[in-house]
């Protein structure tokens, strides 16, 4: 009996999830779909259901859960990737944000406002020219400019940390201005607050 109640509960939840999913994917869903799931729900609640049926339902539920989690994960991952790909570039030996950098950072700011669970590490980098020591200082200044901009955008300081990599982690190799300009950057690492 206990089992049966459990199955009923699970299948009920499954139906709700189905409804929710259906609603989400098709906001103007046709009434037939809803009545069908409702019928299914009443049917599955019947005690006459066999163990095999219950198992397949539970499996179906697990699959749906997994799918939903996967979808959420993929969505977050896409967001994280989007944020992580938003490198902000700087001029030589400068740490001021360019207009283009500010546009990019505004987008990152929006994402962070929406996803309150995200915390970020802002990494400041320099090109290969200059000394290791001074480039740490310069990278720290760049990361800070980015942090200040996002703070002004409304992101809590507690969700951001800044760190300088100096010239130690170049994105592009070589001694060309093209490589240099790619390396004078700040980029993001994203963590999800548990």
């Amino acid at each position, binding site marked *: 009996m206990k089992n049966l109640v459990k199955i009923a509960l699970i299948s009920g939840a499954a139906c709700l999830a189905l409804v929710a999913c259906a609603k989400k994917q098709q906001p103007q869903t046709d009434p037939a779909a809803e009545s069908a799931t409702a019928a299914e729900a009443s049917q599955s609640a019947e005690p006459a259901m066999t163990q095999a049926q219950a198992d397949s339902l539970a499996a179906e539920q697990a699959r749906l859960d997994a799918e939903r989690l996967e979808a959420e994960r993929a969505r977050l991952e896409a967001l994280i990737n989007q944020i992580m790909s938003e490198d902000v570039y700087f001029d030589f030996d400068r740490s001021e944000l360019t207009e283009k950098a500010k546009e990019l950072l505004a987008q990152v700011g929006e994402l962070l406002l929406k996803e309150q669970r995200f915390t970020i590490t802002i990494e400041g980098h320099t090109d290969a020219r200059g*000394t290791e020591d*001074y480039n740490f200082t310069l990278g720290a200044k760049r990361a800070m400019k980015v942090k200040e901009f996002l703070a002004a955008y409304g992101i809590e300081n507690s969700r951001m940390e800044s760190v*300088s990599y100096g010239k130690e982690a170049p994105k592009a190799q070589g001694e060309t201005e093209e490589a240099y300009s790619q390396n004078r950057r700040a980029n993001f690492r994203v963590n999800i607050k548990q």
Partner: protein
Amino acid sequence: MRKVLNRFVWAVALALACVVPQGAFASIDTIAVDVGISVFKTTPIGIVPFEEKPGIDWIEEKPHQILTRDANLSGRFDVVASEKFNLALFSRSKAKHYMTGKVEPTSDGRLAVDCYLYVSQSKDLLLGERYTVPQKELRRAMHAFFDKVIYQLWGERGVASTRIAYVSKIDGVKQVVVADYDGFHRSQITRDSTISMMPVWTRGNKGLVYVNFKTNRPRLYTKNFGRPEKPLFEQFDQTYSPAVNPVNGELLFSSSKDGKTDLYIGNMETGKARKFAYLKSNQTSPAWSPYATEVLFTSDRGGGPQIFVMGKDGSDLRRVTFMGRYNERASWSPEGDRIAYTSMDNGKMNIYTCALDGSDIVQLTNNAGNNEHPTWSPDGKLIAFASNRSGTYQIYIMRKDGSNVTRITQAGENTAPTWSWFYDDNKPQPKEGSK
């Protein structure tokens, strides 16, 4: 004129490089490049191959070859090489002294080496030493003898027994290594999967302080040789640019927090540290004066990096460099009167020295890739630095006037050399108070 000379010297050097035989020691002998006309005062010294008893299977350089290399590197001598004692040659070359010796195999497979320093004219023995060592330790024995020769003739301590710490890319990761000053006997100190960099020596050459990224940020660590590593000043977020006080061992370093970089001074034993100077600008690359009375550092108060000096209590702040827009990472000559630093012009880094008031600027490197991270030998005669003039970054030694550039690392990528202090155990017993 200087340029033409330079080119000529390079051409000669290249030609020489091409004809160096690919023998066992081909990689040892390096290209000597004279930059312009040297103003360095050197003394001619004769070197005669050691008398050799049969039965030695040579796998290392022979004693006179090691001494020749030491003499050339030292910045104190011009070598007058002769296959045997030749008073006419020594006299013509003004070589008032010469070195030679005897070497024979011992029954237990070691070498017994007698080393002599003679007065050329009278053949009076000035110095005689015997070393009985395995062949692989011959080089260090000869360095010890050479430093005794320097003490005998100059009354000063030589640097043949000193070492250099630097950063070497091993399997794609920057690691801290230590080698003898001539590049031999390299040993790896860090073995991390994350970057290690900026090594400096603790007092007495007992260990190193360096930066590692294992916590995803630059942070200082110290390690006494043969002992485990210890993180330093963990109360700070990002720490780098270490400088060991030569008198009391305290550590001066940079720490960046919220985009601001300041200098801090701390005790590595207790872990306590305090802010060194309260300045609006960012400060990095601190360096102590020889007696730890003053500190050099870089500030960005003018926009780009420039070198400043102040008292150890933060008083009497003065700007040192005014030429050019990028002057960084100064280090104080052990003789006290000059600094060496790296300057960037048109994206190229070169090494300069100047007086403490910023006057008398001398450019030491020129037209040869990037040249950076100068570090003084403890006797103040030489400067080691990193250059990519050969295509990859390698460590070089030059005299303090920029002459006699000699490469001491061969393979891979090597940067950020820092010269050790004198080695007291190899000290030729100088009298108290002597320099």
